[in-house]
């Protein structure tokens, strides 16, 4: 097995050299590697010709819709008077739950969420009626005329309120391992407290959208901006009381998704389908940004009570963690998100004795849902915060505390066992720690920063600008924890000119899955990637597909596509072996000797004689050989029992680490990112520039979660941050001054297609290093009254200022 670890840097580096001064934006672009295609939609993107739902040509007789929503977050509907809406100009129809021919309950795990609310409303803005008009402005103006009266009840909005009211979704879950009692006896010291992280808006730029076109004979074609066309097909069919075979869902591309379109693209699509069902006219829905942010679910807020016992080196010997998430009004994916959180509370650390209890709280907010990381970030942040706290308690460098707790490279060791019993195999994290510690000059910078922070100014105080440093690892489990979803099918059509179309259940949301699939297929046939086209995702071509989620789409769909290619190749090799042997003296036909390379096929024993791939395809068709294949893949060897909390839920782990250095103005609470060094093990990358885009993109999204992005609700359960004016995702200037990203190029991962590793979600969690670095910086202001242990996620300027002031959250609110 080839270990490519000695090649410096693996290949790509972003960022200035260490010698350069304070300002060095990422400078050295990642050059496109020879033979690597551009993103498959890039030419359309840059010219504005790539189409999204709102860009599709206007259909004859097309309608637009608007929603009548709940005026409060919780209560019983006493009156829904839509007469004025119906009479308004331009209105074609108004539909309520009573107009749904099928079931008024849906949900990806539990069917508990009404399509349209009836007697009870459970979150502010929850749709009660759909208004259809020829023009969107007419529809919106009409919807505003609805008279909705609700007998209001006190809404449950926070985790504390839900716990007090006993409002939960799904059962209490537990994962436990080891002898806790013995662990507590061994513990020299303990820390305990509560860790809180807030939610995060996905902030895809294309809002939720769908276009539903009625077709002949009682069928619908749904164009949706969704990660999950099969779910759209099912939900639409159920709501209309139809068979799934009557609905086709097609996805060309999404203008971003990040988990927000895994389940929640369904409602707008169903609303449009309901109107199309009644009017037999095409119907388009495109949420406005405010509407989208107000109505759709987000990353879950989590509270975790922790009790950690450790020895004198900071090694954890006992850990008890009690986790609660804010699920919103309906189940959606909350139980699955909770599960992934529980499975990532260890992050990269061995917890010899551990008990994790967890539960989803039901509140009167829109149902929270998937967002890149899917509970993983919320879990990892807890243990990383604990690492800082343990180190502060023992006056050790947090890096050393992390190091002694890290899962070992030796997979046979007892310390390689996770709380749920899966063994951490092929673990490169110890190596990643070593390399990063060196390449980032961690120890040297730690000394410099300690000296800087220890300085006193002319007034005997710490410097105005405090600096912080932190190294945080990421170990992210790859596979859906719901075993069923780990399957995929692919359809590969080869044409007589040697060009190829591929269709899978993977949807393109910008992550480049189409480009990567095209490369995989091109390589299977040994042809130029330009001959391969990945077609829009459609439930007509690929049935019963899993959502494009859990970072696993290239893994699953790529593996299925490889199998389909292999089937075709086998038939072509059979034909080619005869053709090649016939024209070469003394060569017996041997299909296993046929190679596919450079756009041609050849017999490895006589490689000079070649048949052009297109010519071979033409011949195959003449000879009545099938040039198409549909193939199926299911991830082997995974299983998890959520009742017992034990099993092997993941095919493998994607790992990496990040060193973050930050500067904090202790007077104003402002924060600046000085430098980030990232090193990841993503196996053998298929397309380096695309994987780098995922790494940096995920990282910056994570930086948003841990720093500037804050959801603010009022006491009625209304989200106040419903647009980029008030909800601040990172801008270009929020990039660190110095950003260095490297990968450990290796082919050690035998558990995945082409020795790759999934890369979609894991980099997001690298950003936790930024948060722990802020916490580290605040440690220098303890003498001034700062309480670094109080810092929550997100560390906004205000949150930093509060923590520096020593005020508790309660005191801060009371003072306001």
């Amino acid at each position, binding site marked *: 097995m080839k270990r490519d670890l000695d090649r410096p840097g693996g290949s790509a580096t972003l960022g200035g050299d260490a010698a350069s001064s304070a300002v060095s934006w990422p400078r050295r672009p990642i050059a496109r590697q020879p033979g690597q295609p551009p993103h498959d939609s890039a*030419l359309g993107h840059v010219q504005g010709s790539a189409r999204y739902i709102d860009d599709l040509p206007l259909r004859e007789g097309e309608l637009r819709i608007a929603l009548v929503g709940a005026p409060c977050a919780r209560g019983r509907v006493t009156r829904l008077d839509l007469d004025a809406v119906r009479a308004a100009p331009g209105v074609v129809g108004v539909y309520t739950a009573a107009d749904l021919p099928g079931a008024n309950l849906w949900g990806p795990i539990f069917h508990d969420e009404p399509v349209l609310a009836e007697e009870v409303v459970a979150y502010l803005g929850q749709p009660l009626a759909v208004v259809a008009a020829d023009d969107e402005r007419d529809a919106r103006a009409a919807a505003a005329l609805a008279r909705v009266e609700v007998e209001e009840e006190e809404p449950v909005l926070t985790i504390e309120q839900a716990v007090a009211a006993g409002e939960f979704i799904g059962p209490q879950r537990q994962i436990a391992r080891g002898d806790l009692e013995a662990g507590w006896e061994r513990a020299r010291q303990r820390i305990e407290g509560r860790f809180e992280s807030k939610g995060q808006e996905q902030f895809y730029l294309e809002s939720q959208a769908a276009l539903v076109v009625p077709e002949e004979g009682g069928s619908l074609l749904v164009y949706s901006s969704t990660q999950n066309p099969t779910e759209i097909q099912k939900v639409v069919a159920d709501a209309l009381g139809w068979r799934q075979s009557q609905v086709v869902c097609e996805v060309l591309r999404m*203008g971003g998704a990040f988990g927000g379109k895994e389940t929640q693209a369904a409602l707008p699509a169903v609303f449009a389908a309901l109107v199309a069902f009644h009017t037999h006219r095409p119907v388009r829905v495109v949420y406005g*940004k405010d509407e989208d942010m107000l109505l759709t679910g987000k990353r879950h807020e989590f509270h975790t009570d922790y009790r950690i016992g450790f020895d004198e080196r900071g090694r954890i010997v006992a850990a008890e963690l009690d986790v609660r998430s804010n699920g919103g009004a309906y189940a959606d994916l909350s139980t699955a998100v909770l599960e992934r959180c529980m499975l990532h509370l260890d992050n990269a650390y061995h917890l010899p004795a551990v008990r994790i209890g967890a539960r989803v709280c039901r509140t009167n907010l829109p149902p929270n849902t998937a967002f890149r990381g899917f509970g993983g970030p919320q879990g990892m942040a807890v243990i990383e915060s604990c690492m800082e706290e343990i180190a502060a308690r023992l006056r050790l460098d947090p890096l050393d505390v992390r190091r002694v707790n890290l899962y070992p490279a030796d997979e046979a060791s007892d310390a390689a066992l996770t709380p749920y019993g899966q063994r951490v195999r092929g673990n490169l994290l110890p190596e990643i720690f070593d390399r990063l510690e060196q390449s980032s000059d961690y120890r040297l910078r730690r000394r410099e920063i300690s000296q800087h922070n220890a300085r006193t100014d002319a007034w005997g105080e710490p410097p105005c600008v405090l600096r912080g440093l932190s190294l945080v690892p990421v170990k992210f489990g790859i596979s859906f924890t719901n075993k069923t979803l780990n399957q995929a099918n692919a359809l590969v059509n080869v044409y007589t000119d040697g060009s190829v179309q591929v269709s899978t259940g993977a949807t393109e949301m910008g992550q480049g899955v189409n480009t990567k699939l095209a490369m995989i297929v091109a390589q299977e046939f040994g042809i130029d990637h330009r001959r391969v086209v990945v077609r829009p995702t459609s439930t007509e071509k690929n049935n019963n597909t899993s959502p494009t989620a859990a970072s696993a789409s290239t893994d699953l769909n790529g593996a299925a596509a490889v199998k389909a290619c292999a089937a075709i190749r086998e038939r072509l090799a059979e034909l080619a072996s005869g053709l090649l042997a016939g024209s070469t003296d003394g060569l017996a036909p041997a299909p296993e000797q046929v190679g596919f390379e450079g756009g041609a096929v050849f017999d490895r024993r006589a490689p000079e004689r070649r048949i052009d791939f297109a010519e071979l395809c033409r011949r195959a068709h003449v000879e009545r050989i099938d040039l198409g294949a549909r193939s199926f893949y299911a991830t082997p060897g995974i299983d998890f029992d959520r009742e017992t909390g034990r099993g092997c839920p993941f095919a493998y782990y994607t790992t990496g680490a990040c060193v973050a250095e930050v500067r904090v103005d202790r*007077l*104003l609470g402002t*924060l600046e990112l000085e430098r980030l060094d990232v090193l990841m093990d993503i196996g053998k990358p298929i397309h380096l520039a695309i994987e780098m885009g995922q790494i940096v993109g995920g990282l910056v999204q994570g930086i948003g979660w841990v720093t500037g992005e804050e959801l603010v609700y009022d006491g009625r359960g209304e989200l106040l941050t419903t647009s980029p*004016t008030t909800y601040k995702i990172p801008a270009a200037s929020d990039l660190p001054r110095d950003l260095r990203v490297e990968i450990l190029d290796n082919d050690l991962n035998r558990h995945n297609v082409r020795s790759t590793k999934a890369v979609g979600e894991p980099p997001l969690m690298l950003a936790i290093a930024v948060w722990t670095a802020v916490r580290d910086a605040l440690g220098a202001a303890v003498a001034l009254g700062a309480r670094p242990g109080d810092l929550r996620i997100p560390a906004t300027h205000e949150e930093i200022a509060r923590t520096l*002031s020593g005020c508790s959250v309660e005191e801060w*609110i009371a003072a306001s």
Partner: protein
Amino acid sequence: MRAEAASERRRVGPEPHPRDAVRDHLVLAVNGQLHRVGGEAAFGTLSDFLRRDRRLIGTKIVCSEGDCGACSVLVGEPRRSEAPSVADGGGATADGLSSGALRYRAIDSCIAFLHQLDGCHVITVEGLAGRAEAQSLAELHPVQRSMVECFGSQCGFCTPGFVIAITDLLAEQDRTGSAELDDEELRVGLGGNLCRCTGYAQIVDAVREAERSAQSLAPAACADEQALAAVLGRASREPVRLEHRGRVLELPRDEQRLLAARAARPAARLVAGGTDLGVRFNKGQLSPSEDVIDLGGVAGFGGVRLLAAAAEDAAAGGRLVCGATARWSELLDAIEGLPSLADLRQVLRRFGGPQIRNLGTVGGNLVNASPIADSLPFLYVASARIELVSQRGARWLPIEQFYRGYKQLDLEPDELLRTVEVRVPDPGTGERLLLLKASRRRDLDISTFTAALWMRLEGERIDTVRLAFGGVGPTVLRLPRSEESLRGQRLEMERFRMAGEVASSEIRPISDVRGAAAYRRLLARQVMESFFRRLHGEQEEVA
């Protein structure tokens, strides 16, 4: 879709009007083609016109509030017939986009009213490349090609906006003749656009790559610019008055006509930059039957002038005179490189994004009367005076008297703001100006808190002091007690800390979506120490 949007494409321009004739439709060019537009579309936004009427779907809509840049387009204006402004340098200059006949800047099309584009050339992402839907890299505009080569696009939804913003940024670089954008220019240049996928690194790569490209930045749609500019230049001097379903839209070109229009329609919506009105329009908060007076093209209401006091220094101790319709980008250009206004420049570079600054006006920020308007604390401490005009004549008043309460102005129904005038601090006589903007995000954000301090030092003694905070009350506030606590005192930390304590007790901030009252009170206290440290020469700062 609005059927009544009467737009027709013409190769040749409209007939030239006699000097005082009034046009009854808008004239603008899109990607090299002239359009005459009347009806509902004239009252709507530019992005609606592009997407719905022209089916130019490359311009994307995300937020409809000018806070994401996805809808960015380039707008070329004929040089405004002003008294020569510093920004214009008295004559148009050629740059990467244009021969100089038109001056291009990127704006957010979602919050620009179509009538603001009368006499302008709009270039959308479709107008950059040589032909529609180019299928090869070679046919692309250099910025587009760099974005492809450097993987600057992932989902692609923000990409057209970035392509436009980068093109504008590089053209600006051309104009200033700088060899390579420095990090600050790059940051500022991309500050008006959001991307959620890439984390920006590969977009930054694309800017660097395009910067190295030798290929011309000129959009294909600018091929016949001279002829176009002549038609548009004429159009931009013609007054417009159009009616649709009982609504009147007026675009006066001179003060006399403007004042008459205002006197006749004191309730009409006044539009200059429209960056706030456009947002309210999109949110359905404006009356759909309101008459509209667009004063963006009125001669004598724009421009930025620096009247120098001392010959050797362009600004110090002199006066800065801004027309009400001067854009923030014009003001920024005018104060470029002036050390006496370095802080103002810092704050203004964080005012909206480039697209907002290219549209929004100085007067708009004042008349909008928001207590968190970024410019106001500065204007308060710089003892700004404003000029109000009506058919009855002109009057001047100190800026503080203009504001009577939350969004309450000393402004008669027939009056209009014409000029803002401030004194520029003179470091030579011990004058110092310090400004702070605190916001959730460094760029493209509305302030949580703003502060301005003007001081004159006599040796180590504080002779004059003026202090104003924004975001701590219904209007921007002067802080007389805090000022009193500093006046006549020595420049010492203890004095400033005490002033901070006084300041935090002198304000009554509220909690809102941008911050808790406790945070604002803390900032009000700590900013004084922060200012002191800067006065004391501590350079280190976290932006």
